[in-house]
């Protein structure tokens, strides 16, 4: 027996598991999405793509995911930079602070936000007391609520991805830039940021794909009126029992995420190379 066949034999159970647990469901989803009463049809896709309502849902999903990714990056980068540059003891606490929320279920954290953002919750009440909002103001069932909740849920993924890269950067590069007369802001912009790019890209990818496909938080914070694609798929499966249409929507979501993934992945590959 050659090494090659031996390796293949060893890998076989894993490959089989992958095939059964990953490729078969995806193949079935693809098959379902083009199945009609009389054989193969593209009607479900046509229905989605010709209906302004569903296009609106798709656009909202993409837009929210982009906004959430941007905010996560804006918060995550400075946070990760500070984490990488403080002493080891403080860094430990900061890492714990980032990871701790992950120990609680997303559902429970979302319920927490529901209490905070509701009409008589803490956040709208403070805004009202400060005179920044009127009496009937509430944040629940708005896109803002979704963004707030999702950023809190996904921030650790961004921070940790960036932290991994920044903590490996050579500090002497920054010191060199400063001795050459660079301001702090310019050092960050011209030295740290470009070098941290792979981490930011990886984090953004994670956050974007997770938020585009997330269901629980947008559904609970946005309510039934503000639908994202995942919620629309859920409704098609459980309420109208239109499984082929649900599969078509899932394929569109899948394709959309892939479309974002490919250029991003290429970008990081080039930078690493």
């Amino acid at each position, binding site marked *: 027996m050659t090494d090659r066949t031996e390796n293949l034999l060893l890998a076989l159970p894993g490959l089989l598991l992958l095939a059964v647990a990953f490729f078969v469901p995806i193949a079935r989803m693809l098959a379902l999405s083009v199945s009609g009463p009389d054989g193969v049809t593209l009607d479900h896709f046509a229905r989605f793509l010709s209906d302004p309502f569903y296009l609106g849902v798709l656009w909202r999903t993409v837009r929210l995911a982009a906004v959430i990714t941007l905010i996560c990056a804006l918060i995550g980068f400075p946070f990760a930079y500070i984490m990488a540059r403080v002493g080891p003891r403080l860094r430990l606490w900061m890492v714990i602070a980032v990871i701790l929320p992950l120990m609680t279920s997303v559902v429970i954290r979302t319920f927490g936000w529901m209490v905070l953002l*509701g009409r*008589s919750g803490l956040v709208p009440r403070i805004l009202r007391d400060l005179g920044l909002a009127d009496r*009937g103001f509430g944040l629940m*069932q708005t896109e803002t609520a979704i963004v707030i909740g999702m950023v809190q849920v996904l921030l650790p993924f961004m921070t940790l991805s960036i932290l991994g890269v920044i903590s490996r950067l050579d500090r002497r590069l920054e010191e060199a830039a400063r001795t050459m007369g660079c301001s702090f802001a310019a050092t960050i912009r011209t030295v740290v940021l470009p070098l941290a790019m792979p981490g930011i890209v990886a984090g953004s990818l994670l956050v974007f794909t997770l938020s585009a496909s997330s269901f629980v938080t947008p559904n609970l914070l946005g309510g*039934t*009126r503000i639908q994202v694609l995942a919620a629309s798929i859920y409704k098609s499966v459980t309420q109208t029992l239109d499984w082929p249409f649900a599969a078509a929507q899932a394929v569109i979501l899948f394709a959309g995420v892939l479309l974002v993934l490919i250029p991003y992945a290429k970008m990081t590959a080039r930078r690493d190379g």
Partner: protein
Amino acid sequence: MKTRFGSAILGTLVLALMAGTAMAQDKTLKINSFGGAYEQAHRKCVITPFEKETGATVQVVTAYSADAFAQLRAQKAAPQFDVVHFSGGQEIVGAKEGLLAPIDPGKLTNIADIYDFAKSGIARGEGPAYSIAAIGMIYDSKAMSEAPRSWKDLLDPKTSAHLVLADISNGYGMLGFLMLNKVEGGDLANIQPGLDAVKKLLDGGATVVSTSPEIQQEFAQNGAWLAPYASDYAFTLAKAGLPAKFVQGAEGTPASYITVNLVANRPNQELALKFIDMSLSKSAQECFANELRYTPTNAKAVLSPEVAAGVAYGAEGVKGLLRFDAATIEANRAAWVEKWNKTIAH
């Protein structure tokens, strides 16, 4: 060859199973119930008294109407339930498909006391309604100095910002919406007037929720005053300490009938009929009204004033009950849900 062998094994298995049930048939009854507080009340009001009286054992399977109906359909050749309970009008479809057996009124001692509308289909196989969830208006008696009286009151722009609507994926939500549609001039062939009204209410600040507990949350935390919903849920809110009260709309009260049905082709129908009879009894229905605020269908049921205020009670109270055609709702559900989703998402 292989398939023949397989079917032979299957046949033996079915025979063995049937022999098993045949031996136990006299003294066990298999039914479904809806779980949670409902099942507790069901045990207290019907199941335990029945077991005591007949010495039979009742096996309860927790399954909502739609699930129980799906099981019944799948088991058409060899049904496993003796009695099934439905709340979404499944008995109408089930009777048409021959899954349920017609009931001889002579076998039920309590049937004479049941209001006519609740037993009109028993000869066709649609089981009698033993409880009714009446859909009316739940309102906050502290926040609203004047109780709503008519379904049109829901459309008052003054209360829009404090109104909660239930999504029509929710059974009660569907009935409330159809009633709103009706008072706005629509019918089951045309739900546009209802959708237009919903759109106006949403523009005025109303919220949509998809599950019952969210209604409680809206009333407790988010300043909701008014919701078209069921009598039993008004009681749930009151039990949670909220000043919630239930009132029937003047134009009529859509009703969700909770029916008890005799499954066709089961060996122990005598025992099953006894169980159905028990569900229709005065004491069982009074018990359901006390426990969960369901409207009794037994004309002889006597309720305390406090309980009576929370349900549609007596000949006067049930006169306004109306039932939308379950078969039409079922046939249109997918299309309506999509239209509704588009309306509320604007």
